[in-house]
């Protein structure tokens, strides 16, 4: 991600916080959740929960409601919007990250359950200005159109190669099946994975140690 994009993000977040603060405060609590979905047995008031884990090699600590998913923690609490929210139900793979070296969907992972773990996101793949070989391969092979699913596709592809599943087109398709691309860039994604797998010795899943 370039510096100008970061600036745009920061501006949008600041603007949203300033303009919508009152509404957020009103809509954010348990009362509104109950009002929106009907009556239920008395819910427990949400308490803040402190959770610490490593993100892209850096130790981070955040105070969150226990309901916050790893996806929302990354995007809304840790300033890492590269991980995308698609379906938010584990069906599309846009939110794929690595936790302790395994690819998972961060939308179905509670941040609270990540205490002490090591998380790698798309922002953690490159080394300085040098793209990770899978990122470079997606660029080279045009493995995307709109790009929204791409961070998840790349995180899955990095893991797939590490797992040893990049040995045929059919296996790449099967083992990328958790990542949906509504633009239909699949043929180029398969090419990118195949190409990157040729650099296998240079590819490691970060955060596995």
């Amino acid at each position, binding site marked *: 991600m370039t510096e100008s994009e970061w600036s745009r993000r920061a501006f949008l977040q600041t603007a949203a916080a300033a303009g919508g603060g009152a509404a957020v405060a009103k809509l954010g609590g*348990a009362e509104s*959740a*109950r009002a929106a*979905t009907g009556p*239920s*047995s*008395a*819910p*427990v*008031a*949400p*308490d803040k*929960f402190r959770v610490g884990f490593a993100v892209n090699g850096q130790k981070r600590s955040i105070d969150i*409601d*226990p*309901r916050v*998913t790893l996806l929302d923690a990354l995007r809304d609490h840790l300033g890492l919007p590269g991980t995308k929210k698609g379906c*938010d*139900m*584990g069906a599309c*793979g846009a939110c*794929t990250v690595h936790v302790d070296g*395994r*690819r*998972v*969907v961060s*939308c*179905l*992972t*509670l941040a*609270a*359950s990540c*205490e002490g773990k090591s998380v790698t996101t798309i922002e953690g793949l490159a080394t300085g200005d040098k793209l990770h070989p899978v990122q470079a391969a997606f660029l080279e092979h045009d493995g995307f159109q709109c790009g929204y699913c791409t961070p998840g596709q790349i995180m*899955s592809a990095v*893991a*797939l190669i590490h*797992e040893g599943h990049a040995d045929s087109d059919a296996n790449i*398709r*099967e*083992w990328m*099946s*958790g*990542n949906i691309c509504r633009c239909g860039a699949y043929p180029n994604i398969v090419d990118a994975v195949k190409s990157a797998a040729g650099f296998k010795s240079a590819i490691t899943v970060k955060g596995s140690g």
Partner: protein
Amino acid sequence: MYPFRYESARDLNQLGSGVAGTEFLGGGTDLMQLMKDNVRRPDRLIDISALPSLDTIEFNGVLKIGALARMSDVGEHAAVKEQYPVISQALLASASPQVRNMARIGGNLLQRTRCVYFRDQAGACNKRVPGSGCSAIGGENRMHAVLGGSDHCVATHASDLAVALVALDAVVVTHRPQGGRRIALENFHLLPGDTPQIENVLEPGELIVAIEVPASPLARRSLYRKVRDRASFEFALASAAVALTVADGKIRAARIALGGVGTKPWRARDAEAALAGQPAEQSAFEAAAALALAGAKPLEQNGFKIQLAQRNLVRALQSAVG
């Protein structure tokens, strides 16, 4: 999602007994979906995923899978692939690689149905709200069960793994404060009857700690065949777990279970008995498949599943014979 208190359990013996409103969190792949949909509203969530020693996979004549072993680890385990191919195949045909890295074996057996009326509050569902009715029986029921349904519920059990395990006489090992139990998987899940909200024999607070599967020549010659609406990352329309021993062109023994068509993982004992002693050929497979679906009751949209399940079973048996 409704608010809840979150706790991380470190000791199996300090879980205590079941308290209403308390749920266990393992991999979370099903529970989180249901909590986001407000179908399940625990006010206390006990994260058991860090409990020690429950994620092991051991094979010493018996396969013992810890309840917190991940689907991916079991599916790719060398002894499982060699001694119990049907288990590995059922797991690797389930969900997506990411979900398999999260979901645990115990939770897989306890996953809730994919019936849309169970997950969508707009419809009536006797599983979700007992006594509210069943919108599926007169509604969209293409995906629903043809075996084991009642006037109150026709939802399928969604697990592929459970189908493989029930074919191989797996045993569920549990933990309770007053002492654990061993429960044959075949007796673990319940037919819906008039209490579809009660899906298994677990007591409140009782936790699955392991699954045990005996080794056998049958298990070594086993396979899983799954038919679905898309090539991958989809639940079964019809699936079959089969295990055979064959000598001199005749079937000595067979184990058969069906998925995607039953309200619980469906062991087809009549079909197994019919195959024993028969020549390992098409006509015997077709007769067994007819028996396996003999009690099927189609709904308006899912009649196709009967023939699909039969043909899929015949193909599975053909492949198992080789």
